[in-house]
């Protein structure tokens, strides 16, 4: 499995399944196509486009890609739940289109929402699947003992599955697929929406299964760091398989191209990162990491250009990761798509850029350039940081709130002893912190930690039970409506009217915020330009691709020029490229003086924040810059903890201390 296609080229055909014993691949597909008709859309969605792959047996394989890449469709085809429009798919040597039941008798499958019966108890769920798979009494007893040891579910036998936490549900879902030894285990995004601790436990269970029981496992995931633990990685993007092979082979794509650079003292890493990202001709990707900036240069970029960008900052080469290889592959594809598109438009239709995936891909490489040229014009220069050409972000970076030299900006959000109870359940217990103007402030925590509750109280959607809460100089407990005019809110789900056009949505929400006449028109023009939506005013919002929808949501949230922007899980489900683009915009926004409050479950995104808060079980466990939080987690002087490791460390510490406190109270 070392073959590795050049970026953009179709993968070489996989070997056909052979009848020989032990030689049968777990899954072998050739030329798979699948289209869906989406309601209201003129064009059917191409979920899978000429996918050819072979997944070997007795190993752990990952299906990687952003939302909409085609992962779920491929797994459903393999499980016999759907039939391909074209192509052949053999699972365990059986033609699954011909005989789905034969495949379903031998495999186990966990769908995205775990497929649990929430009104049945843990034990009843397990018994149901054991009965369906015809597991005998004796076998069952031995099997259950092992599953309980593995998943730690034994304590919850009689609890209803619906009353379990997200992580426990995920483990129960997995246990239900393992009531007997399947010949192939398919897991569809088992770690989506599950906190890092539970994710880590799940992967160690899978590792163990493959090593000890020689199980064949295919896992789909949007997390590239998870795919790194697998023997094979299959990278899907826009319905196409863009790479398959061992993680090493994909990593190889970026080998020798990855560096880490420390920003000049007193500046935020994101300032340097923004500058690097804005030079797509030289840099493939840049992201803040551990207080430094990690970047990938283009193989064909000349050293002088890189040095000029770094502006005296020294860069250390680092080993490539899977994500780096993925970014290199993705950028390669985009360059190709762009060439293809421009050729097409020249030859056939000189029409405006279509809102297709190809179109989006083609526009992305130039996006950062356009954005940086514009940042000083459309963004209101409220923070007083209107610098020179494309320098706004960097200029503000120097007067960073954490930089000791500059005058400290005023406090815009002040929280003291904030408590929220639902009945006798305390969702948020005595939280205190403050946020300064122009800061990017992150709320992090596992599911059920209280971050959504905190977030909702901050933007005035939920009254606090007790405590002091002042937002933009207004006490939220007494003057909520007034405070609302100063804040913008972007919900996690697309909360605009899908059947209205882009322009109509902006008009409506502008009106709702009290904008009218020339003022409204002027603001609409500004946000349309700011979020690259100009020219798409007539497009129906609901049919826009994901990235566009999110930009429209942001544009709507900023129409009334709020001082504070609240973003709830803005990056969940969007691909790494779109996430970079998103954070680039946020960086520019913060530079212009807008305060940004953001929740995220991507731990590495905490690196973009000036300060973060980590919550668990309603308690505030850590607050400070990413550096301070890392230090609190006990990061050794040299061994840099990743944000995820720091997060896990802090949550574990917090849980351990609350447990000892609890024991002390009982004693």
């Amino acid at each position, binding site marked *: 499995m070392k073959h590795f296609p050049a970026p953009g080229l179709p993968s070489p055909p996989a070997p056909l399944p052979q009848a020989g014993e032990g030689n049968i691949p777990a899954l072998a597909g050739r030329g798979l196509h699948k289209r869906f008709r989406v309601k209201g859309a003129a064009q059917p969605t191409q979920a899978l486009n000429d996918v050819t792959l072979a997944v070997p047996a007795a190993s752990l394989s990952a299906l990687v890609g952003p939302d909409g890449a085609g992962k779920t469709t491929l797994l459903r085809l393999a499980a016999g*739940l759907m039939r391909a429009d074209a192509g052949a798919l053999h699972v365990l040597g059986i033609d699954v289109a011909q005989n789905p039941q034969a495949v379903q008798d031998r495999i186990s499958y966990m769908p995205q929402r*775990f497929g649990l019966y929430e009104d049945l108890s843990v034990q009843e769920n397990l018994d149901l*699947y054991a009965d369906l798979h015809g597991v005998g009494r004796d076998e069952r007893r031995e099997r259950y003992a092992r599953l309980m040891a593995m998943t730690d579910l034994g304590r919850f036998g009689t609890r209803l599955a619906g009353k379990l936490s997200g992580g426990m549900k995920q483990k129960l879902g997995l246990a239900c697929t393992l009531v007997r030894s399947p010949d192939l285990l398919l897991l569809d995004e088992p770690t989506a929406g599950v906190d890092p601790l539970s994710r880590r436990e799940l992967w160690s269970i899978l590792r163990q299964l493959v090593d000890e029981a020689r199980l064949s496992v295919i896992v789909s995931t949007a997390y590239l760091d998870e795919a790194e633990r697998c023997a094979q990685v299959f990278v899907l993007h826009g319905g196409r398989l863009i790479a398959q092979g061992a993680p090493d082979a994909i990593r190889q794509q970026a080998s020798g191209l990855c560096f880490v650079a420390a920003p000049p003292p007193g500046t935020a890493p994101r300032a340097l990162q923004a500058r690097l990202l804005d030079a797509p001709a030289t840099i493939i990707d840049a992201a803040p990491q551990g207080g430094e900036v990690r970047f990938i240069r283009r193989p064909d970029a000349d050293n002088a250009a890189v040095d000029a960008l770094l502006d005296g900052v020294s860069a250390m080469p680092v080993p490539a990761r899977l994500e780096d290889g993925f970014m290199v592959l993705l950028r390669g594809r985009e360059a190709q798509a762009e060439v293809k598109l421009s050729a097409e438009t020249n030859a056939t239709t000189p029409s405006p850029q279509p809102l297709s995936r190809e179109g989006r891909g083609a526009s992305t490489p130039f996006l950062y350039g356009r954005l940086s040229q514009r940042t000083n014009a459309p963004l209101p220069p409220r923070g007083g940081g209107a610098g020179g050409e494309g320098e706004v972000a960097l200029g503000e970076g120097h007067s960073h709130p954490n930089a000791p030299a500059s005058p400290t900006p005023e406090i815009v959000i002040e929280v003291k002893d904030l408590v929220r109870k639902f009945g006798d359940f305390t969702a948020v217990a005595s939280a205190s912190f403050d946020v300064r103007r122009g800061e990017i402030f992150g709320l992090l925590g596992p599911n059920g930690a209280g971050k959504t509750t905190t977030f909702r109280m901050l933007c005035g959607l939920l009254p606090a039970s007790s405590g002091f809460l002042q937002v933009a100089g207004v006490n939220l407990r007494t003057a909520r409506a007034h405070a609302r005019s100063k804040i913008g809110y972007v919900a996690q789900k697309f909360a605009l009217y899908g059947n209205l056009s882009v322009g109509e949505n902006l008009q409506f929400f502008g009106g709702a915020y009290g904008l009218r006449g020339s003022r409204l028109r002027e603001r609409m023009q500004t946000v349309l330009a700011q979020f690259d939506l100009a020219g798409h005013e007539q497009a129906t919002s609901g049919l826009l691709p994901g990235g566009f929808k999110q930009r429209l949501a942001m544009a709507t949230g900023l129409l009334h020029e709020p001082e504070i922007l609240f973003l709830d899980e803005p990056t969940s489900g969007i691909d790494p490229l779109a996430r970079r683009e998103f954070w680039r915009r946020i960086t520019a926004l913060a530079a212009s003086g807008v305060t940004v409050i953001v929740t995220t479950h991507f731990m590495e995104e905490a690196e973009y924040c000036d300060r973060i808060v980590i919550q668990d079980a309603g308690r505030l466990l850590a607050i400070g810059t990413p550096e301070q939080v890392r230090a609190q987690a006990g990061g050794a002087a040299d061994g840099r903890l990743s944000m995820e490791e720091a997060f896990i460390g802090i949550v574990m510490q917090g849980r351990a201390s609350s447990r000892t406190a609890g024991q002390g109270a009982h004693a």
Partner: protein
Amino acid sequence: MTGPARNRFWQRLIALTRKETRQLIRDPGSIAIGVLLPIVLILLFGYGLSLDVKNAPMAVVLEDASPAAAQAVAGLQLTPYISPVPLASMREAEALMRDRKVDGIVRLPGDFSRRLAAGDATIQVIVHGADAAKANIILRYATGALTQDALRRADLAGGAALGGGIGQVSIEQRLWFNSANTSTWYLVPGLIALIMTLVGAFLTALVMAREWERGTLEALFVTPARPVEILLAKIIPYFIVGMAGLLLCLAAARFLFAVPMHGSLAAVVVSAMFYLLVAVGMGLVISSVTRNQFLASQLALILSFLPSLMLSGFLFDLRNVPTPINVIGHAVPATYFIELLRTLFLAGNVWSLVVRDCLILLVYAAVLLGIARVVTRKRLD
């Protein structure tokens, strides 16, 4: 099917049925619809919805104060269907009538006794006509009550003193099959059909859709469970709840409303089983096609419950409706079940009708369950 395969079939079916039963018991909504709603419907239809007229208030205006006049209206006091309200003037009576405080007026003009002696006395009976059916019934009762006195008088006079149509022959009215003419007797068999439609179609319309919505079906499909087993497991618990509803209704019919049972109880139970299969089949088809609980519940209401209520002859006799409605009504399975039940309850074992209607119900059940089986494929696309 070989031995082990059959064993596995039963093991899976039992496991799935146990699961459905647990879910049914733990869902307060299902319990409310399956148990509480039948009880509410029985009480509502049994006591609240009555087509009978009892104690209808009627203004009695005696403009002639003679004993003969008083005697003429004495009959009104005796009938249980009318309660007379004596008034002094027509003006008052009209006011009450306008306010719908009384349903009618009986007026004896000032020259009543004089004209009675002359042999051409008239009594004016006015009835509020807003509710035509009720007006007719009241008119009939009032006329009947007033005629009593006239007949007696005619008897005394020994001749046709009053002239007109009333002779000395007493008219004895008689109703067949519902000899007390209590509408409860007529409604309760229909009510059984209605409740079984509700439990069968409405509850099962939710179950498949619920699994589609929660994504649990996806996991269930990728197991050795066969579609037939999944469907059977969904039918069994709801069939039992439906039969429990039947027992509840039969008990209420017997002990609460004292509806006579002229036919065979076994025939009632067997035909109810057939009808329940029809209802369950309809629910499963709706559920599998819509895959959405809200849509499924709306469709179940429109396609099964409302036709069973409005078009089945439950409220309106199908022979009296326009032909198109009559045709539609005869496409509704509840029509045959209600016909069957009324026959069995009130008329007795009319075997030709019982057998014919049972066969029709069986065909409906087979077709609907067949469709449910065909649309329940282990496929998401």
